[in-house]
């Protein structure tokens, strides 16, 4: 059988995530494959069992059914022996009729029970996988942003799909097959021994042979498959990177280098896969020999025993049939063992996510933030994304209710980090952040975030209608309220020009809208949510002047009467701000109004002049 490497690519190219210090559009191989062997198979198996055992009743039923069908599988050949020995050779036609009917009954029952097994087990396995998927997804919802910032989407995606799929495959087929194989083996062996212990013992000779062969081969295949998955992961990494980066490669004329890099990975994979699959493929023909040898031994020994008067021709006929039955479950179990190993590796990756630390829970007695006034204070806040690399150092400021605070400074200075801390996407290392005098950590996280309205530079939309995308801000809003919010956000006019107005379906990532339009939708969304405090990451870099004016107007309306934190790029925002905080290298180095800062003649003055140094003399 051809082993299937699991490499369904579920991930799109990594998306850019500007405005955060973590990774952005990273050139990296997506985490597909690299299915290593489970490191703690027993522990993983136990956890997987916990999921399965939720369906204990159905599982027990399956075992019982498998027991019956395996038993019936033994009855068939036995009846065959009876038919030959007692009926045919004795010229007993009515007896033959009885036996034949009995066989027919046994076989029909077996078929029926087989279907019952599959029926029950498909329910068990699918429900188990559903449970697993649900837990995994729920877990994802509780994970802190740090988790998502340090992993590619493809990596997480692959665990939720590829790895869960592998588990599902093993559960839906593996469990019944394993049980039935094991039961069949035991039953066939004991029947043979009961029927004729001498011939039975001889027949079992093939058992250690098969076990030896399986061990011999899996020693190579285990290593081989690990190597195959590793090289496949590397190959997919190269493909992902060089195809996504194709524009750069072409613009620099580096196609040949890319082809070479690919060639190396491709050949490595070919060699590893050939090795692994060759060894895996040997199992079939070689066990076939053992199999046939077994039959020959039974025939030979059976003949000898018959001559000696210890067996009958019918016994031999039955034994040959049993010997054939013997081979299949052995083969099956060898294959299942391989499958199980890869499923355990998948399960381990799934459980890794489940073991991640979730966002901190609300402290007991945490307060709910209901009617926020909007008084925000940072006191001596220190923070680092990675230990030893401080991003904010002793940042303190105080925003009065209704004030607009502009955050200004070079990229990487820590402006976005201020936002990340205010929303508690990350927790501070020392100092305190207070809203209306209450420390953030003593607030219910949900109530805090509900009072914060955030417009990010990079607007994310869902593959749904415009209406639903805006409604995301407040799920119980009526259509009228949604439209009203859109009007306030200056988005109504462009929405109405869309093919189906508010009912227009947006593609994922809102590809059919311009960036400016997407931002207007995000503003409408926040408008609808009606939060007490605003956090805006002004993005203007790729928006043309006219759309920008619409956005500007909408933002001004949004900011009315609310405390607002703005990562400011526009001069007008900065000029109208009540406080301008100039952040550089993780510290607030200057603060005041636009005019005060200009008069100070410091960093801000320089920043400002560098932007306008040519323009100023022109007009002045």
């Amino acid at each position, binding site marked *: 059988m051809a082993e299937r490497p699991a490499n369904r690519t*579920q991930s799109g*190219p990594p998306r850019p995530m500007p*405005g955060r210090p973590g990774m*952005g559009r*990273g*050139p*990296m191989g997506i985490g597909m494959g690299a299915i290593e062997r489970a490191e703690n198979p027993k522990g993983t198996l136990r956890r997987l069992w916990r999921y399965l055992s939720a369906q204990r009743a159905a599982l027990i039923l399956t075992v019982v059914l498998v027991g019956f069908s395996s038993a019936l599988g033994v009855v068939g050949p036995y009846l*065959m022996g009876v*038919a030959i020995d007692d009926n*045919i050779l004795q010229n007993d036609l009515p007896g*033959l*009729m009885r036996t034949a009917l009995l066989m027919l009954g046994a076989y029909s029952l*077996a*078929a029926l029970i*087989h*279907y019952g097994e599959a029926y029950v087990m*498909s329910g068990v396995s*699918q*429900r188990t996988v*559903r449970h697993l998927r649900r837990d995994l997804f729920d877990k994802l*919802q509780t994970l802190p942003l740090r988790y998502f910032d340090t992993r*590619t*989407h493809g990596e997480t*995606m692959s665990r939720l799909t590829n790895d869960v799929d592998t588990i599902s495959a093993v559960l839906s087929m593996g469990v019944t097959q394993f049980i039935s194989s094991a039961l069949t083996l035991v039953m066939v062996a004991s029947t043979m021994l009961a029927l004729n212990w001498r011939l039975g013992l001889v027949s079992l000779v093939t058992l250690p042979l098969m076990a030896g062969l399986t061990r011999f081969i899996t020693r190579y295949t285990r290593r081989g498959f690990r190597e195959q998955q590793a090289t496949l992961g590397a190959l997919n*990494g190269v*493909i992902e990177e060089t195809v996504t980066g*194709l*524009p*750069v490669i*072409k*613009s*620099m004329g580096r196609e040949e280098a890319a*082809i070479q890099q690919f060639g190396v990975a491709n050949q490595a994979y070919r060699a590893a896969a*050939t090795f692994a699959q*060759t060894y895996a493929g040997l199992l079939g*023909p*070689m066990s076939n*020999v053992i199999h*046939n040898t077994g*039959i020959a031994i039974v*025939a*030979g020994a059976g*003949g000898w025993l*018959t001559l000696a008067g210890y067996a009958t021709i019918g016994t*031999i*006929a039955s034994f040959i049939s049993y010997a054939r039955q013997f081979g299949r479950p052995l083969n099956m179990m060898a294959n299942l063992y391989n499958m199980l190993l890869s499923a355990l590796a998948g399960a381990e990756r799934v459980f890794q996510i489940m073991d991640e630390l979730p966002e901190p829970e609300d402290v007991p007695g945490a307060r709910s933030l209901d009617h926020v006034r909007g008084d925000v204070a940072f006191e001596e806040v220190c923070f680092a994304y990675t230990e030893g690399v401080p991003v904010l150092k002793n940042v303190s400021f105080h925003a009065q209710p209704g004030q607009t605070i502009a955050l200004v400074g070079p*990229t990487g200075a820590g402006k976005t980090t201020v936002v990340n801390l205010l929303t508690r996407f990350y927790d501070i290392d020392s100092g305190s952040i207070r809203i209306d005098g209450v420390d953030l950590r003593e607030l219910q996280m949900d109530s805090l*975030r*509900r009072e914060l309205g*955030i417009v990010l530079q990079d607007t994310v939309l869902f593959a749904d209608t415009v209406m639903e995308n805006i409604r995301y801000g407040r799920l119980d809003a009526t259509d009228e309220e949604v439209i009203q919010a859109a009007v306030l956000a200056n988005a109504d006019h462009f929405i109405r020009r869309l093919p189906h107005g508010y009912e227009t379906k947006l593609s994922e*990532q809102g590809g059919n809208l311009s960036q400016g339009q997407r931002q207007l939708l995000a503003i409408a969304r926040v408008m609808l949510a009606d939060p007490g405090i605003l956090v805006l990451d002004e993005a203007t*870099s790729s*928006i043309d*002047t006219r759309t920008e004016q619409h956005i500007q107007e909408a933002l001004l309306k949004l900011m009315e009467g609310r405390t607002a934190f703005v990562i400011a790029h526009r001069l*007008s925002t900065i000029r109208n701000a009540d406080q301008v905080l100039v952040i550089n290298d993780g510290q607030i180095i200057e603060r005041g109004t636009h005019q005060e800062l200009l008069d100070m003649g410091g960093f801000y003055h320089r920043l*400002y002049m*560098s932007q*306008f*140094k040519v*323009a100023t003399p022109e007009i002045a």
Partner: protein
Amino acid sequence: MQLIRRLLPYLRPYWREALIAPFLMLLEVAMDLAQPRLMQHIVDVGIAQLDMGIVLRTGALMIGLALVGMIGGVGNCVLGVRAAQSYGADLREDLYRKIQSLSFGNLDALGTGELVTRLTNDVTQIQEVVMITLRILVRSPLMLVGSLTMMIITSPRLALLLLALVPIVLVGLTIVIKYAHALFTAVQKAIDGINTVVQENLASVRVIKAFVRQNHERKRFAGANEDLTARSIRAERTVALFGPFLMMSLNLGIVGVIWFGGVDVTRGGSQVGQIMASINYLTTTLMSLMMVGMLLTRVSRAQASAERVTEVLDSEPVVVDAPEAVAELSGRGRVALEGVVFSYGSDGEEPVLAGVDLAIEPGQTVAILGATGSGKSTLAHLIPRFYDVKAGRLMVDGLDVREIQQQTLRRQVAIVMQEPFLFSGTIAENLRYGRPEATDEEVILAAKLAQAHDFIMSFPDGYDTLLGQRGVNVSGGQKQRLAIARALVMRPAILILDDSTSSVDVETEALIQGALEEHLKDCTRIVVAQRISTVLNADSIIVLEGARVAAQGTHSELIQSSPIYREIYESQLGNGVVAHG
């Protein structure tokens, strides 16, 4: 079938393996088929006549033949795997080369994410079918024909039973496959549904957390999850019908053989061994039949993959080198556009550029300004010939770009794109990407000019810092600066910055511009920008509007003469300047 023929030539280098493998399989099949006959011989002759010699000899023969069969099987496995893996590797390599040769127009049409799937998933699917064909697909029909023949030879009368059974199995198989296909398509849709929810959740994690919508998302996911579970169960249960059905048919046959054969034996027409051999052949025939059916569905599923792969293999690069294209340029960096018309789609579409004339002298700095969709980036992409003009011509150093080899042209023209893409590897490797032979000094100088040196040195490993998942993460602005440095290492005659300082703060941007001004006097610079402060110093500013050049001149000229320029200027800086002045 046509598609299979299209992809068959990739097997040609391995024709020996591909031909011998089935023959070896034939050997294995023949040996397998002989076994029941030998068994029959043991029972009917050896044991019936109580001749131990025959029993032992025949038993030995059985083992011997099994060993011969093993040689066939192992050989088939070794050769089949080698041929199939090599086939896959070659196909992948060819596909990859093809993709590397495609132009930007092709990439827009195919989509890079799609291409990744085709290179990975689709090729694997096809490769597997080749493997199956060489290893199993040959076996099953051979077994089918062989066991059928053997059954007829063993007992023509009992073989008649197959006449009744085979059609039943065939009909059952067809029905199940048909239903299964529809059901599994439905399952696949449900999987897509789940993937969409998860993908959206990963992309929108901030929004979801900010709006506290975790429960809403859980509900959405639960719906998709429920849907998938229900469909999977239905599909699995339908397919599960087939196993017992086949068993039933098979056992019906066995009982039939026992009954009719038994009656025949009592009349002296047959022998017991014949019955046993017949049962064996009957089993093999029906099993093979099922295998063939199942494998055919595999092949038909791979058909879709073959289609997707051939689509790429058959797409022709839109931009190709002319046969007599020039391989060398004087390298002064003159750029001229004469009546350039361009549109991304077919000719009927509204053009993005509708007759643009432009002359850029060597060493000049030209800025291109305009609203989104005015064609700024498009114009920039035409110079390194990412796309071909629809009408008019674009000249570099006095030559039409279509008369210059792409490699040559692109070594002269360095473009830094809006979204910087860096490769995994060290910073130094990334900076050397365009010119691997650049010295350390050149790399460091480029980094200094792009204002990247300081932050690079702030990393513990400096230029050897690894970028990417396992390495240091750099911010958007830092990435843009690295991309600029990478372009500078190439020492281009023409440098195009396509809105490539959008995430860099204004002060740093000014430093970069100053450094380029000072060190790259000979280099023609074309700067596409949204921010007006970016363009103020340019020798010439071009304002695009409505697919045409609306105005051109220096800042002081345009502020007087161009209302559009004045509008852009005032919306960005206007009031601030008055307030300051």
